[in-house]
C-alpha cells in the first residue's frame, strides 16, 4: 500500500492481531454474560503494573504486563469467589473489584510519581489511555504470538467451550473438568485484556472485547460462525482504526478503533437481517398488515353469511385508519377483494381464503382449549400456519373433534 511507512505497518499488524484475539475471547465472554468482567479485569491490572514497576524498578513492558496479568487474575478470582461465599451479587462484586483495584493502582501510581524522581510516568500513564503508536516490532511479534496461542486454544477446545456456554450442566454430567475449563476461559480473557492494555488503555479495553462480539451476535446465531465473524470484525476495525488515526495525526488510535467498531455496531443494529431494528420493524409491520387483512376477510365473510355481499367503506375504516387502509389495498392487490361501487366485496379467491382462515382459527381455538400448557411461540394465531406447526395427526384429530362438536351442536 502506498504511503504506509514501516511504523504504521508494525502498528497495523499488531492491532489487527489484537482485534482478532479480542473478537474470539470477547464472544466467549458475551455468551457467558461476562462482558463487563473484561472491564473489571482491565481496571484490576493497574495495581499489578505499579507493583511490578516498584519491585523491579524498570519500565520494561513484559515485566509490567506480567504484573498486570497477575493482579487482573486476582481480581477475576475475587469476582467469582465473592458471590459464592457471601450475599454480595456478581454485579456488585465486579463494581467492587473494579473500583477498589483501580483506586489502589492510582494510589500506588501517585506514590511512584512523587517518590521516584526519574519516572517520567510515560510507561504507566500510557497504560491508562493506551498509546498504540508507540508499538514496537517486538511488541507486535509478542501480540501476534499470544493471539495465535489464544485462538489455538479456543480452536482445540471449541466443543468444550460451546457446551460450557450453553449447557454447563451437561458438561458436568459428562465428567468434564468444568471448573478448570471455566478458569481457562477466564485466563484467556485476562491474557487478551493484558495484550490490549498498552494499545487501547484500561478504559477502552472492554470495548475491544465487547463491541465486535455484540455486533457479530446481531448477524449470526451459530457459535463457531459467531467467533469467526467477531474475529473478522475485530481485526478489520483494529486495522481500519489504525489507518484512520495514522491519516489524521491528532487522533489517538485506541479511541478511533473503538469508534470505528461502534459505527459498525450501529450499522449492524440497524441492518442485521433477523435481529436488526429495521428488519424487526418491517416484520412487525407486515405481521400487523396480515392480521388486519385476515380480519377484513373475516368481516366480509361474516357479512356474506348474513346475506350482505357488499359492505360499505365506512364500516371498515374505523380506528387505526392507516393500517386498515393498507390492509384493504393489499387485499385488493392480491385479488381477494374487489371494489363494488360504494363498498367492497369478496372475490371468489378471497372467499376461499377467508374460509381457510376461519377453519385455521377454529382449529387453533380447539387446540388451545385442548392443550393445558402451550409453548408461547406456538400461540400465534396466524392464518394457515397450523399445518406447519402442529403434526398432521394432531390436525386430523382436531378436525374430528371440531366436526363432532358441530354435529353435536346441530343435533
Amino acid at each position, binding site marked *: 500500500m502506498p504511503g504506509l511507512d514501516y511504523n504504521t505497518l508494525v502498528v497495523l499488524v499488531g492491532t489487527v492481531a489484537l482485534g482478532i484475539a479480542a473478537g474470539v475471547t470477547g464472544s466467549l465472554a458475551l455468551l457467558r454474560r461476562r462482558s463487563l468482567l473484561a472491564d473489571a479485569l482491565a481496571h484490576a491490572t493497574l495495581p499489578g503494573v505499579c507493583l511490578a514497576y516498584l519491585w523491579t524498578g524498570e519500565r520494561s513492558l513484559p515485566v509490567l504486563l506480567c504484573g498486570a496479568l497477575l493482579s487482573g487474575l486476582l481480581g477475576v478470582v475475587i469476582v467469582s469467589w465473592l458471590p459464592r*461465599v457471601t450475599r454480595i451479587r456478581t454485579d456488585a462484586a465486579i463494581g467492587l473489584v473494579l473500583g477498589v483495584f483501580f*483506586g489502589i493502582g*492510582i494510589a500506588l501510581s*501517585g506514590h511512584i510519581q512523587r517518590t521516584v524522581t526519574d519516572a517520567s510516568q510515560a510507561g504507566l500513564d500510557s497504560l491508562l489511555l493506551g498509546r498504540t503508536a508507540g508499538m514496537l516490532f517486538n511488541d507486535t511479534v509478542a501480540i501476534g504470538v499470544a493471539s495465535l496461542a489464544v485462538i489455538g486454544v479456543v480452536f482445540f477446545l471449541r466443543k468444550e467451550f460451546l457446551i460450557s456456554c450453553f449447557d454447563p450442566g451437561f458438561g458436568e454430567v459428562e465428567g468434564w473438568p468444568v471448573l478448570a475449563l471455566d478458569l481457562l476461559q477466564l485466563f484467556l480473557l485476562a491474557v487478551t485484556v493484558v495484550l490490549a492494555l498498552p494499545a487501547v488503555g484500561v478504559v477502552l479495553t472492554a470495548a475491544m472485547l465487547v463491541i465486535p462480539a455484540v455486533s457479530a451476535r446481531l448477524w449470526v446465531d451459530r457459535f463457531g460462525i459467531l467467533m469467526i465473524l467477531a474475529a473478522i470484525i475485530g481485526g478489520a476495525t483494529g486495522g481500519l482504526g489504525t489507518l484512520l488515526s495514522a491519516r489524521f495525526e491528532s487522533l489517538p488510535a*485506541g479511541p478511533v478503533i473503538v469508534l470505528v467498531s461502534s459505527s459498525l455496531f450501529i450499522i449492524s443494529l440497524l441492518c442485521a437481517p433477523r435481529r436488526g431494528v429495521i428488519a424487526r420493524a418491517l416484520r412487525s409491520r407486515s405481521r400487523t398488515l396480515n392480521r388486519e387483512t385476515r380480519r377484513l376477510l373475516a368481516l366480509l365473510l361474516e357479512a356474506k353469511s348474513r346475506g350482505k355481499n357488499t359492505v360499505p367503506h365506512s364500516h371498515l375504516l374505523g380506528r387505526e385508519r392507516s393500517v386498515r387502509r393498507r390492509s384493504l389495498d393489499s387485499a385488493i392487490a392480491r385479488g381477494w377483494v374487489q371494489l363494488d361501487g360504494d363498498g367492497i366485496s369478496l372475490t371468489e379467491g378471497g372467499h376461499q381464503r377467508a374460509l381457510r382462515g376461519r377453519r385455521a382459527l377454529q382449529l387453533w381455538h380447539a387446540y388451545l382449549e385442548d392443550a393445558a400448557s402451550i409453548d408461547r411461540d406456538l400461540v400465534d394465531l396466524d392464518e394457515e400456519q397450523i399445518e406447519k406447526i402442529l403434526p398432521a395427526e394432531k390436525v386430523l384429530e382436531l378436525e374430528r373433534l371440531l366436526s363432532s362438536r358441530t354435529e353435536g351442536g346441530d343435533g
Partner: protein
Amino acid sequence: MIDLFFESLFSEVNFSILLVAACASMACALVGTFLVLRRLSLLGDAISHGVLPGLVIGFIVSGSRDLPPMLIGAAVAALLVTIASDWLRDHGMIDGNAAMGVVFTTLFALGIVLMESHARSVDLDPGCVLYGQIELAPLDMVSLPFLETRVPRSLLPIAVVLIIDLLVVLAVWKELKICSFDPALARSLGINVRLVHLLLMLLVSMTTVACFESVGSVLVVAMLVVPAATAQLLCNRLAPMVIVAMAAGCVIAVVGVLGADHLDTSVPGMMAAAGGGLFAFTVVLSPSHGLISRFYRRTRLSLRIASEDVLMEMWNAREKDGEESRVRGRWRIAAIWTLWLRGWLTSPRRSAQPTERGTRLARALEKRRQLWKRFLKRQLLTPEDHLYDPAHRIEHHLDSELSERISRELDQEEGDSSS
C-alpha cells in the same frame, strides 16, 4: 499519637478536603445502596465513564472550565447512557451488561477523540476525569452568604446533590423500598415502577456527575458500590443499611484522606483502597454474614449432625451390629468427645455406651426418623429403597413443633384410609 491524628485531621487544608470527600462518599453511598439492591451496580461505572463527551461538549460550547455548562453536558450524557443501554437491552436483544459496555465505551472514546481534536492544550485532560481534583479543593474557597466559614467551591455541587438525594429518597422511601425488593408487588400496588426507576437513574446521574469532578470517574464506582456492599453484609433491613452505608462512606473518607496525607499519594486512590480494606474486614468479621461466623455456624451444625449420627449408631449397636458407620475419621472423634462432654456418653471412647440422657435423645431421634420415613412414603410416595438417606438427613432439622404437625397429619390420614 492521638494528638497527631487530630492535628492532621483538622489542619485547615485537610479539613476542607475531608469535607468534600465525606459529602461525596455519603451521597454516593446513599444512591449506591439502591443500585446494589437492584443489581445495577455497574450502571455507576457506565455513567461515570459515559459522561466524558458531555463534559467536553459543555467545555467546547462554553469555552471555559465553568462548572454549570459542563455539568449540564455531563448530566445529559449520563441520562443518555441509561436510556440507551435500557433501550438496547429491551429492543436490541442484547444482554444488559454488554449493552452497557457498548454504550459507555463508545461515549468514552468519543469524549477522548473530541478532547484531542477540539479541546487540546487546555487544562481539561483525561487524567482529571479519571482521578478527579480533590487535592485542589482548598485552593479555591468561597464564603457562604449566611455563614462565617469559607468552604471549597467544589463542595457546593456535592452538598446540593447530597441534600437533594436525601430529600428525594425520604420522599419516595416506600416506593423505592418496594421497587428494590419486589418490583412485581410494586406494580400490583399501583406504583409506577418505571417512573421510580427513572427517578433513581436521575439521582445516580446527578450524584455521579457532581462527585466525579472531585473524586474522579472510577472512584465514583468504588464509592457507589463499596459502602453499600459493606452495609449489605451487616444489615438485613433497608433503613439500617442506608445509614450504615453512609457511615461507611464517612469512615472511608476519613481513612482515605489521612492515609493519602501520610503516604503522600492521591486522595481518591487512597479512599478506594480504604474502602477495599473496610470491605475485606467486613467480609471476614461481619457477625451475621462474615466468613468467620459462617464457618463457625457450619462447623457447629456439622458437629451436631455428626454427634447425633454417632449417638444413634452407638444406641443401635446394642440391638444390631454390622452396619457401616456414616461418620468416620476426625469427625467421629470430635463427635464422640462432644457427646461425652455433654453427658450423653459414658466415656470418650469408641466402646462407650449412651448414658440415660443419651438414650432418651437417641429414642427421640429414632422416632423422628421413623416419622419422616412414614411421611416420605405416604405423602411423597417415595420408593422403599430411597427412604433411608433423605430420612437420615432430615431428622436433624425437624423441631418438635413440625414433628408434631407431621405426626398429626399422618395419623389423621391413616385414620381416614382405615375407616
